[in-house]
């Protein structure tokens, strides 16, 4: 299920890198842990985001979780329809369920992201709710 060619954060965000653009979303593990999602707030286009810092929030009935930026840079595009359609997030978290496209400021940051195998280990160690 976890795409092999994506990069990950321990906090369950994924990033797909195309040149100097990172497409970002949250993993199916994160979606599952959240349960019924009720609200997604996306950042504004043009907002500056910093690696490992919160850029937006997702809420379920039982939790409100920050979504962290996997890379630093500027928000180029956001997936606005997703804020009205949480089904897609459950069905296709790694494709149609993307949230933000970030123009990468510093490609060196990419080396500290997790690979698919490393991320899989993170999910196995985390207690399931």
């Amino acid at each position, binding site marked *: 299920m976890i795409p092999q060619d994506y990069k990950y954060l321990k906090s369950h965000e994924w990033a797909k890198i195309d040149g100097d653009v990172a497409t970002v979303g949250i993993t199916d593990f994160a979606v599952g842990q959240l349960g019924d999602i*009720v*609200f997604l707030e996306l950042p504004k286009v043009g907002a500056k985001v910093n690696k490992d810092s919160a850029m937006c929030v997702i*809420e379920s009935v*039982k939790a*409100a979780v920050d979504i962290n930026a996997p890379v630093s840079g500027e928000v180029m595009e956001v997936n606005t329809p997703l804020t009205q359609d949480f089904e897609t997030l459950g069905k296709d978290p790694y494709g149609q369920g993307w949230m933000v496209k970030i123009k990468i400021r510093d490609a060196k940051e990419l080396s500290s992201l997790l690979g698919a195998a490393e991320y899989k280990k993170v999910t196995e160690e985390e207690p399931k709710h």
Partner: protein
Amino acid sequence: MPYIANTAEQQEQMLRQIGRSMSELFADIPENLRCKDLDIPPGLTEQEVCSRLAGLAARNKPDMISFLGGGFYDHFIPAAVDAIISRSEFYTAYTPYQPEMSQGVLQAIYEYQSAICRLTEMEAANASLYDGGTALYEAISMALRITGRRRVIVDDSVSPIYRTMIRSYTGNLGIELVETQSRAGLSDRDEIRKHLNDQTAAVAVQNPSFFGCLDDASDIAEMAHKLGALMIVSSYPISLGLAKTPGAMGADIVVGEGQSLGMPVNFGGPYLGFMATRMQHVRKMPGRVAGRTVDGHGRQGFVLTLQAREQHIRREKATSNICTNEGLCALTSLVYLSLLGKQGLMDLARNCAEKASYAGRRLLKIRDVRMRFPKQYFFNEFVLELPVSADRVIRRLLEKGFAAGFPLVRYYPQMEKSLLVAVTEKRTKQEIDLFAHVLEVSI
């Protein structure tokens, strides 16, 4: 022992079942930490407690003919308010964590939120905050969260009591709090414009101002919005029976002290902080919120919603640390507003304004007494400029059984001769005449 049901025999029985003695139940407290002696007097019977407290109550003098307001007003409280809020199904319950057995409180919160929205012409309200001052502070932190900016402008015609509270709360947070000087009893537009920039999170004003003056702050809201700042209005709910609403002025967050909606002045509390906002900001609003939904059979019901933002889930990232609010006070205000109803609130507000207007005219007949802000309109409170120090006049009137008003010099050093006079529907025309007479001979 008072309020403990189990007899000594039952306690013994229970200890036997547990298999331990009472002292063994406390053996986990290390010997050196155990309380050796407690210097607390022996217990009293109910009759003794009541007579002791009645004795203390008798040492207070609540029955002055009072013109004291300053944001806290002595309005008449209908008997039905007391009767309803004395139902212990309401007041001995806790926060409605189990909706199926708390529909009464939850529906009341929903109705309260609705009443606050209708009163202020806003779109969403929370289930209440502690008081008008903490509510204003919460509104300011909400604006900081929404805008991500650091500067806040508060006009000094906002209650000085609230401004001192805000200074304590924001002192350590690296927030730039600008207090602009008011002009002629109202927020000074030029002053606000001078400090308003694209790093300003919010402008906060009060209507009626602390000096009782009525304003239409629409232009300030427009000015703020142009630079991406929010407009916060602190409001006196009874005045909203007549006055232009914060919603109509373009306010983004409305707060205020709800004490006047059926609560006694109570020597400072419990009171009721109310807060309302626009739908778009609702997820940044602090405090509990009730929402309407359905059960599995499609039956209407109410729950606490938007809880994911709250401290018990988000902990250090919560929108606020608030947990308990002022549930019973919110219920009180809802009952009060329901009893008065649409026409009643208008009549009440008009009655207050008319009596204040009468009192103003009557007092101006006294030689050398004038209005401090003669150009402004007021609701039920106004500032008299006396020929002598307000403190002296207040002291003399207290001796004659009148609380003449509040000496503004307490918070505005240059206003030594200014007396803030409030009139509610409880003051009769005769009392006002008598007050004017006594004031005249006391100057």
